[in-house]
């Protein structure tokens, strides 16, 4: 198993493009770490540097305490699964699986045994004689995974392995990967641009943007306390509403947030944390599920409905808060009905809000009260 440490790892190309910018990251032994970010954020390049397929421009990479910058991929003993599977088109499944072992001069009988074992684990025994061209996308995916598994490497690097699959298959494979990780207890680095995949799979998520690490943490932490506007806007669908606002003083020595025509009082627990924001403009972050219809106990905000999307288990209301140009969405109960143009009063769960500094894009730190049912 592998303990992988990236210390200011940087990839820059001739011409001054920096794809990965001083990434510090520690992947613990046996951990499933997800690298998440939009395309071009440097997550795949980071993975390829760990694999040894790209050279590291500066910084150090350690596997189990040993610096491996200059080591060949074969000596790093990590297996990589590519987005396009990269199977050998001229070899059948069995030979695809066994090729890495053959290169390592494993005796043929042992190769045969391990190929059979891996095929059984992935349910592809019946396909061993077929060529990749005769397989479906999901089957190729399994073979690519099997090719990594059969080598019993120190760790697995998965480069968007699910993104070429259809939605249903992706969900199935996601669960299988999680099961496999639990079964093997192996170190896995999984690269994806799919935030749902990251949230459901990762023990920890590392969110990247513009070649830099923006936030690292367990999915729930990152979701509850996004470190920046980028993270807040990237996670979840629909993402957190980000509205221009200002912090003002209120009667009785408290603080309130003014959003357009609405003034929302800040909860007592946050007064100290947000005191520095007084009389300054901020960005107010509210998750769509923290806006509630018919919740008179909560501070109210009025929005003009633009669209009402029925998505099955819930209704997404998209509307413009009074006095603002920016749209906001709310996840409401499936019974909710409204017509475009209706003015709707929504309760805001102020204990779940975030304030961001519009200049730096960073969240203003505040105590974490955790999730709890709001008071209706």
């Amino acid at each position, binding site marked *: 198993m592998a303990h992988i440490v990236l210390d200011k790892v940087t990839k820059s190309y001739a011409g001054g493009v920096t794809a990965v910018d001083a990434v510090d990251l520690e992947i613990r032994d046996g951990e499933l770490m997800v690298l998440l970010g939009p395309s071009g954020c440097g997550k795949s390049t980071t993975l390829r540097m760990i694999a040894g*397929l790209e050279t590291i421009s500066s910084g150090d990479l350690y596997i189990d305490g040993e610096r491996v910058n200059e080591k060949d*991929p*074969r000596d790093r003993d990590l297996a*990589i699964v*590519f987005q396009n599977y990269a199977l*050998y088109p*001229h070899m059948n499944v069995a030979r695809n699986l066994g*090729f890495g072992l053959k290169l390592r001069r494993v005796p043929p009988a042992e190769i045969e045994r391990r190929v059979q074992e891996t095929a059984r684990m992935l349910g592809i025994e019946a396909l061993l004689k077929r060529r990749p061209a005769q397989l479906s996308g999901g089957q190729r995916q399994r073979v690519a995974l099997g090719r990594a598994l059969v080598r019993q490497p120190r760790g697995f690097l998965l480069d968007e392995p699910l993104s070429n699959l259809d939605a249903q298959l992706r969900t199935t494979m996601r669960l299988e990967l999680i099961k496999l990780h639990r079964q093997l207890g192996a170190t896995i680095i999984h690269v994806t641009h799919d935030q749902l995949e990251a949230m459901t799979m990762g023990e920890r998520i590392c969110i990247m943007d513009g070649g830099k690490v923006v936030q690292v943490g367990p999915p729930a932490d990152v979701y509850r306390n996004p470190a920046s506007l980028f993270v807040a806007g990237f996670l979840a669908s629909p993402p957190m509403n980000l509205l221009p606002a200002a912090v003002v003083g209120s009667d009785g020595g408290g603080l309130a947030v003014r959003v357009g025509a609405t003034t929302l009082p800040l909860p007592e627990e946050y007064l100290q944390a947000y005191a520095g924001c007084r009389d300054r403009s901020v960005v107010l972050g509210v998750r769509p599920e923290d806006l509630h219809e018919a919740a008179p106990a909560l501070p109210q905000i009025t929005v003009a409905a633009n669209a009402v999307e029925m998505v099955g288990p819930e209704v997404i209301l998209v509307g413009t808060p009074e006095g603002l140009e920016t749209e906001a969405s709310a996840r409401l109960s499936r019974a909710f009905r409204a017509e475009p143009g209706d003015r709707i009063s929504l309760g805001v769960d102020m204990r779940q809000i975030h304030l961001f500094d519009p200049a730096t894009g960073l969240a203003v730190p505040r105590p974490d009260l955790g999730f709890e049912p709001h008071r209706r």
Partner: protein
Amino acid sequence: MSALFAPTLAARDRRFGYAMAAPAIVVLAAIILAPVALALATSLFDYTLMNMTFDRFIGFDNFVAALSSSEFANSMVVTTLFVIAVVALEFVIGFVVALMLTTVKRGKNIYYLILLIPLLINPVVVGLIWRMLLHPTLGIVNWLLGGIGVPDIDWLGHPGTAFWTVVLVDIWHQVSFMAVLLTAGLSALPTEPYEAARAEGAGTLQTFWYITLPLMKPVIAVTLLIRLIFAIKTYDLIYIMTRGGPGDATDLISYYIYRSAFARLNLGEAAAMAILLMVIVIVLTLALFRTMRARG
């Protein structure tokens, strides 16, 4: 309704197709089919340039005469050796050049240009140039070799060297054909298996042996066959450089056929040998087509 009209529509389409193809078919028949038919006819008659009439039908006597002649047998052996030597050497050199070219990043077009220059030269000109360069007393090659102490070599005048000289000149002329075709094949290979192989720990030689070679198999087969078919028909180089000599050391089949027809004036026997050669080339061409179809 449409079922009712479909046959007539299809028939009309077919007729229109034939009408469009007819001119080309007529021209091809006139310039290819007719001469071949005439050659076939000639091969069955006692037809010589001394007596240019189809007055005596002799059946397969011309074929029997050709096949029992030791000169024909010799030219078949020489042609076979020439084809094997030329194709094998050009393939090995061409593949090495192609592999090196694929790793070139800058100035690739310049290399292509240099490679293509020999291919653009007419074979007759190639023969003339090399005849001058290899002239035993006046040629620059012997002069240069003399500079490092190598005694003069009679490149084309000695039975033992003439064959290999012609082979070398043919390689100089045609090797870029292989290199260009194989380079095209290499650049069309998928890149993903290479990354996977590298990640799995394959070295350069292992990658070549287990990935490049098997993936290139169809391209290699087609390249070899095309070159083979052309090599069998080599004529110009021999005519210019050796006239089949010294003795019969470079008497390739197409040159021998030419000699039979226009030196020995026996057109009937020459036609019979030409038909035999055509059969061999057709068989190879069919093999080429099958390989190409298997690839698709």
